[in-house]
């Protein structure tokens, strides 16, 4: 099997993968942050700072994507991950399909 590797597509691929993962982590952080806010244990000021930190995080990710021209790569990695997760969940929900495919 010949792998087609050059510097550009290697960079796109790896960087796209990394940023996609960072985005996934960002999404989890966001969820956690909202959950904390809803728990009522954060002061107004803390909420404000948490929001600002996350906002900065978003901005940084966007900048990197634009700078490196990897917006599409990241999206396609995320779509791929989504499909994978959907499939795995579907399999967990429908164990009959394991048998079908075996």
């Amino acid at each position, binding site marked *: 099997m010949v792998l087609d590797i050059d510097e550009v597509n290697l960079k796109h691929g790896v960087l796209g993968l990394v940023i996609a993962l960072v985005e996934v982590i960002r999404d989890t952080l966001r969820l*956690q942050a909202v959950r904390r806010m809803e728990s009522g244990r954060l002061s*107004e000021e803390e909420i404000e700072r*948490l*929001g600002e930190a996350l906002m900065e995080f978003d901005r940084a990710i966007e900048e990197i994507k634009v700078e490196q021209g990897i917006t599409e790569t990241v999206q396609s990695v995320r779509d791929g991950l989504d499909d994978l997760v959907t499939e795995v969940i579907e399999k*967990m929900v429908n164990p009959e399909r394991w048998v079908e495919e*075996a």
Partner: protein
Amino acid sequence: MVREGRSETEKLRGVIADLVREEAEALVHEASEAITEIVRSNLLPAVRSAIREEIAKQLEEAVYLSQTARAQDEGGAAAEAPDAEEASGNEERGLYVYGIADANVETELGQIGIEGKSVYTVSYGDLSAIVHDCPLEPYESDDEEVITRWVATHQYVIDVAEEKFGTIIPFGFDRIIKPKAQASAKDVFRSWLAEEYDTLVQKMEKIRGKKEYGVQIFYSPSVLSQKIADESEEIRGIKEMMGTKGPGAAYMYTQKLETALKREMESRMSAHFKDFYERIKNHVEEIKIEKTKRSDEKDRRMIMNLSCLVAPNAYQALGAELEAIGGESGFFVRFTGPWPAYSFV
């Protein structure tokens, strides 16, 4: 003061990171058996078959190259790629099967097959198979257009046969019967027909006179989230809160808003799904729920993808029902067909 703020944020980050890690670890731990099972049952066979395919492809290429080289050495003009199988001295001993017709006929349909092959029927009992003679290699090409053309021809042959003989149990593209030891492909195929005869007759009864239609229903996320935003107390409440906050807090509330919207959207969609399913079910013989696909169009998402087996007298009512669904704000329906009953045989 600034320093303090910073370390506070860092502390928060640390806490959040720990929480995420813990949760993820717990999840992975809980599901580890299932995950192992899934990886083993899915990934490994896929990887294995990918490797096998690649090896086969490389081998084939090597063989093809050496054959072309030989052909050129002998001064004979090398055949074009699709005819490579023929050039290799492989006679047309295979049988390409388009489908099975609901009639006993032995006849010729002319040179309408894939690559202009002569299509004819092989009868058995009350059924006949629609076939052409072919080389033993499957139809394969790297050129998508070529494949599209082959598949379209496959479909066309089934249409012609349907016109002539009535209901057809369609076969998928590229089903080729191979000869076995002394038996010719036709003999192999006849004995297969004999074995499967009862099942085939049953299937034929199920689909006789009926057609398959594809029903895909889409929604527009923007239209529906607007609708939810207008209707939901919770969301209106969050929106009002946002106006009075600083940018950081507003960001947090936007996230909260999106989560609330998403949750509401999901629960509405599953209600719509049930509703549409019930309404469609009334007009069809059988429904298969297919995987939803990502839509290429902007602001369109597929909520359901169905294959329906429809009796001729129910077609009008189904059409009307679908029109009603498509008329609901934010929903679109794509209705395709009629097709041979691919999904039900």
